[in-house]
């Protein structure tokens, strides 16, 4: 078991290293000059001012140092928790900007991922091998999982928000309020949370339901199922055993889907102007705020790595074979 976790941690460590290296390399080796584009954005006429700014930015990126030194400085700054200064919200440090946005993203993403996973698995297992449900629910599941996250978000916002006028479509709380500890504010938060949550939940739900349905059908062909059936076990009991086996690949699937789910949350936030990381990314791109963009990238990678590790631990808890070293792991 310690070997299993050792391997996993090694991979996550290497992934982090690769992510930081990508982050460092891209501004330096991509065609296009980030300093030039930031100067263009500032749109200043005086040549002296332009020169001063160029010097400032070049110094900020450390472009005038030898490459290995730039790389070392990058890591050193990272360990000090220094991701640079945001240009969009000058002069707030990038870490602060991100720290303010993270709770919104987590509050949206975690419930949507967990609830869609649980509900999708339950529903998929229930629908498998039930003819009429299979024939009606399955096509809906495929349509849902093929839907781009932002499109479902737009449709929900349009249908329930603009046309029906039931729910708000922008922001995380009413523009008339300031964040505070009160029931009114909590109600407003919940109201604004419902639609983005629903659109994330629905798309992910379709995928999980289909995955589970297919798994159960495979499991119902397995020897142990035939054996149980020949012993006269009830349909419910057989299905319960099949479910427990079928849920293991779904846990692995959850780890594999994390990137897609995060991407879905980012675009959903953009549709609803929800002040999470997706909103930050949009602002960073529109304002050419490369420090903010890169900081957000690192933050998301770290979050995904942590989530992967949590799933690994869950897998060991659920599957006894990994604990006695028989493999069978993800």
């Amino acid at each position: 078991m310690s070997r299993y976790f050792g391997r996993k941690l090694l991979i996550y460590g290497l992934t982090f290293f690769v992510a930081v290296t990508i982050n460092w390399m891209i501004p330096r080796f991509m065609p296009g000059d980030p300093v030039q584009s930031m100067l263009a954005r500032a749109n200043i006429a005086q040549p002296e001012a332009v020169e001063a700014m160029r010097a400032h930015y070049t110094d900020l990126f450390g472009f005038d140092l030898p490459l290995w030194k730039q790389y070392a400085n990058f890591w050193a700054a990272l360990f000090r928790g220094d991701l640079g200064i945001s240009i969009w919200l000058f002069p707030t440090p990038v870490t602060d900007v991100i720290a303010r946005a993270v709770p919104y993203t987590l509050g949206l993403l975690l419930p949507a991922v967990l609830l869609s996973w649980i509900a999708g698995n339950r529903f998929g297992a229930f629908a498998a091998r039930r003819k009429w449900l299979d024939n009606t629910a399955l096509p809906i599941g495929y349509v849902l999982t093929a839907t781009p996250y932002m499109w479902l978000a737009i449709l929900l916002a349009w249908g329930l928000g603009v046309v029906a006028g039931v729910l708000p479509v922008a922001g995380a709380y009413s523009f008339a309020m300031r964040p505070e500890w009160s029931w009114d504010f909590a109600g407003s938060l919940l109201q604004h949370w419902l639609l983005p949550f629903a659109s994330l939940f629905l798309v992910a739900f379709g995928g999980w339901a289909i995955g589970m349905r297919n798994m159960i059908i495979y499991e119902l062909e397995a020897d142990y199922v035939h054996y149980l059936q020949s012993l006269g076990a009830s349909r419910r009991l057989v299905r319960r055993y099949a479910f427990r086996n079928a849920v293991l690949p779904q846990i692995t699937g959850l780890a594999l889907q994390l990137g897609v789910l995060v991407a879905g949350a980012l675009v959903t936030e953009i549709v609803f102007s929800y002040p999470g990381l997706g909103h930050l990314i949009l602002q960073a791109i529109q304002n050419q705020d490369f420090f903010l963009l890169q900081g957000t990238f690192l933050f998301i990678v770290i979050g995904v790595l942590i989530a992967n590790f949590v799933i690994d631990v869950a897998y060991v808890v659920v599957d006894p074979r990994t604990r006695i070293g028989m493999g069978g792991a993800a």
Partner: protein
Amino acid sequence: MTATRAPRREAPRFVPRNGKLIAGLTVVLAFLLAALFVPLTVDHAPNEYVGPAAAPPSAEYWFGTTTFGQDVFAQFVYGLRATFLVGLLGGGLAAVIGMAVGFVAGYRGGLVDEVLTMLTNIVLVLPALVVLLIVNAYLGVRDVGAQALFIGLTSWPWAARAIRAQTFSLRSRDFVDLARLSGMRTPKIIAREIAPNMSSYLFMTFILLFGGAILIAASLDFIGLGPTEGVSLGLMLNNAARWSALHLGMWWWFVPPGAGITAVVGALYVMNVGLDEVFNPKLREM
């Protein structure tokens, strides 16, 4: 090889009977034909300002016009082209990389396998869209080709893992041993003995990568990192959101592009299930 001939000759008989495969294929082909030929009948460029501003669908402009008087239908059919192109190139590149890595890792085993598996796992854990975001943000001029290239480079790992596992189970079969004993070289063994025995699986992997590439490209376009020139379905969504089509109630601007993506990708998925049932008799009997 004889073992595989029989089921393969048998498979086509099931094709006309499999409703999912036919339904999926019909939708995909219909959209593909629309993407290929309908733009030829449109006599203006997709981004040209041709009509009245913000007009709802009419006999003249089937899908209405944008706030600036662009023809949504023209944008839609040209955008479909970009969608198929990015799926074909991005999904194709990912399939090639995934197959190369999966075959070599699964067939060679040992240290080569260790290194390739490590590489696969690293790319697998990195969230693809977020990597694409920062790559594209620094890329000054963006086109569909570059977009497809980077999508292909980031979305191959799960395919490599699946193909590696399949190769692993095939490589100790008698016919592979025989080929090796007869002095056949590794690339030839992989191409002639192993790949044909999982050809249906490879094709289905490609279809899933194709659909995945389309969805990732749509997200990138929507965030505003799509091609700097031209049209795509994702860019249409981006423009509709940016110019608040939502609040102006211009549903004809944002419904068609999303519906197009959903229909193509959904049909690909359904087609895949149909193929799975055709090739895998266990799933067929229901």
